[in-house]
């Protein structure tokens, strides 16, 4: 008998990369591509804000106060005559950056707890499981408010608070995924092949368990942006003249004559979060 073995010439890496890029463009749905573009723009705002606007986010210019949206000022100007779009662009760093920090804290702390609980099992699992249960029992937003009150009113503390609040969610998913992989046949086979526990954990279990956790991390990024905006809105973030998106919405509602000061940053928040959620859903479907 014979097994058909199709000889496939090895592709040079460069060509493989372009082929991968081409297949990405043909297989990724357009809405996901659009979402990626939105997220990319927001990321660039937070890294190089000066490339996107010539206005300053902090210098007051009273002559131009309360101008409506137009060609000069895309999102209008605020009570001190500052360009609202510039404030949104410069605010991206603390709004999105802190959300990334928050998710990173949740991902690493939660992932580690889940990995240990799932892989070691026994009393370690029991102790970590109760810890996670305790975290889950406290409402996340309340926990964040308490942490910020304790550590001080800055956006970074808001990020730490949000991260701690999401540890439990990551830990639970990671534990479930790890358990699933730990009992698979190829893991047992690796022990038979002479693999140590650490080796099996990092070479077999982690690479097979992390995918859905990463998809969750992207989803959590969206909700972290909302939570941090909400904290900033309530004043649990850096005080003005910082221009966190939540803070912008809060400041905008003081002036009923200039509704664009609320709608501008609010719409930016909504579009960013929707894009991230779309990407996360697509990731979860493909992984």
């Amino acid at each position, binding site marked *: 008998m014979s*097994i058909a*073995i199709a000889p*496939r010439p*090895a592709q040079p890496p460069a060509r493989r990369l372009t082929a991968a890029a081409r297949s990405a463009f043909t297989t990724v749905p357009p809405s996901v591509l659009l979402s990626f573009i939105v997220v990319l723009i927001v990321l660039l705002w937070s890294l190089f804000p000066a490339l996107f606007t010539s206005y300053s986010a902090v210098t007051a210019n009273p002559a131009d106060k309360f101008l409506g949206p137009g060609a000069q000022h895309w999102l209008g100007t605020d009570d001190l005559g500052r360009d609202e779009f510039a404030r949104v662009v410069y605010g991206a760093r603390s709004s999105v950056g802190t959300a990334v920090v928050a998710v990173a804290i949740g991902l690493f702390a939660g992932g580690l707890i889940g990995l240990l609980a799932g892989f070691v099992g026994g009393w370690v699992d029991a102790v970590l499981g109760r810890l996670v249960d305790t975290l889950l029992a406290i409402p996340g937003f309340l926990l964040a408010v308490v942490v910020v009150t304790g550590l001080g009113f800055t956006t970074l503390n808001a990020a730490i608070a949000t991260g701690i609040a999401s540890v439990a969610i990551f830990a639970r998913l990671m534990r479930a995924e790890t358990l699933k992989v730990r009992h698979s046949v*190829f893991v047992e086979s690796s022990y038979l*092949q*002479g693999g140590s526990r650490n080796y099996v954990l990092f070479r077999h279990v982690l690479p097979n368990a992390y995918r859905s956790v990463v998809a969750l991390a992207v989803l959590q990024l969206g909700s972290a942006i909302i939570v941090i905006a909400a904290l900033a809105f309530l004043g649990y973030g850096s005080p003005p003249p910082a221009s966190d998106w939540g803070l912008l919405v809060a400041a905008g509602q003081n002036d009923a004559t200039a509704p664009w000061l609320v709608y501008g940053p609010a719409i930016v928040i909504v579009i960013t979060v929707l894009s991230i959620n779309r990407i996360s859903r697509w990731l979860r479907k493909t992984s």
Partner: protein
Amino acid sequence: MATENKLKTGDGPAINGFAAHAQTTSTLLRVDGLTVAYGDQTVVHDVSFELARGQSLALIGESGSGKTTIARTVLRLLPPEARVKAGQIKFNRQDVLELGERQFRPLRGRELGFVPQDPSNALNAVRTIGSQALEAAALLAEGDAAARRERVLETFRQVGLTDPDRVYASYPHQLSGGMLQRVLIGLAVLPRPALIVADEPTSGLDVTIQKRILDLFAELKESLGIGVLFITHDLAVAAERADALLVLKDGVVQERGPAAQVFAAPTSEYARELQADVPAVNPDRYRAADPDQAQSQAKSRAKSQAQGEAPSGASQIEVRSLSKTFTVGDRTVRAVDDISFTVRRGSTHALVGESGSGKTTAARLLLGLERPDAGEIIIGDQSVRAHSRGQWRILRRHLQLVYQNPFTSLDPTWRLERIVREPLDRYRVGGKAERVERVKEVLAAVGLSESLLHRRPTHLSGGQRQRVAIARALVLRPDVVVLDEPTSALDVTVQAGIIELLFRLQRELGLTYLFVSHDLSLVRQLADTVSVLQGGRVVEDGPVQEIFTRPRHPYTEALLDAIPALPR
């Protein structure tokens, strides 16, 4: 097209005999020039066949041959991406493909019964069998609830369920696989259909249960005059049970005709190959193919004895009074109960039994994956009873395992080269270049091309994956390889290739095999000695030839009896 020519040459007597038969009775199902495609990939090419009332036809082929697609087309259960490109299906003179969904629905489940492949997934797990059966009975719209219940119970009795009331009240998880399959057959038979389509109805079941289920089909066919369309990969089962066979490969009909004729004298090359690969057909295939193997084995045995080794020194594995009990909830199960056997160096010993016989547990005890409650295991010349984890690690260098299912035993995120190299890396054998060299060497030995080195397991076929698993087990050059049903997830021709490979490697490397299997015909081909297990105990053991020709225990007889009797 070459296949057409082949068909024509095979047409002559076979088709005439077939057609003459069909004329005497009325045609129930007629498929004409059926072509089905998924996207632009055509999976069924121009397939035609006829099935008469009260007759059975088996569609035979390997995975990917299009047999299930044909069955699904007949039942109109094709997934939405599939398209029927050409052809006609006439059931009772109605064109199945032309009927509207509204007109077809009364046929499916009433006139056309279906028995699915996997009985454990086909029923709703949170509802009792009875409530699901009543749902099927309600379709018939006759009588009140009590009458329907009576009808269901009667059907259950008819399909050989001895305690229908208990089955009626049970949930699916409370019944065994064989019982569930009977329930599903019962549900299919309940409305007295004219045709039952059975998709691999016995593939997940033990051999003795398989025999009973097939007997049941034959009985229903006789007593109720139901036509049966079997879908199977097992030529032996088909030849024994069906009136006519249709052999498929890549969606093209290779051969057709009365079962006995196709099986006894296949005319197409593919059918001949299939027939030769059925282990039951020629039990001495590999031994006979290699006359000097027996000689060289005898020679090496004589040599070792000449060198003054005691006869016990020739035993590679010795298991004495091994026992293992599992506790599940408040029930204790004696999985392995006082088992003893010996495996000579360079020979193959088989552990045979059905699910729950303890054969897999015995193999796992031997590998140190479970700790025995009592008894002794001697591997080489050392007892492993008090082995620490470190000692086991050293021992396993010479003691490897090939798993049953190559689809789960390879890490899907790794590439082939790294998978096979893993044992070398873990045991720090040689330098990097030497490891790569040994990986290439062992891949060549198992018949895999080097061009596959950088593929992931998901891009390999089942047979290729099992070859990778064997390569991984052999790369350390072990003395003993435990084979846990290494071919049960594979097609017959692929299985034949793997068995041939195992034989060759044993000859070349002097390996000792412990072969765990439920398939007696395969054991007869591969093993030298055998232990027959039932309920954790050895009911009979000895040389294969002796066990197969003169079984002493009734259970062994039952197992042997379950090997499909081949029409001669």
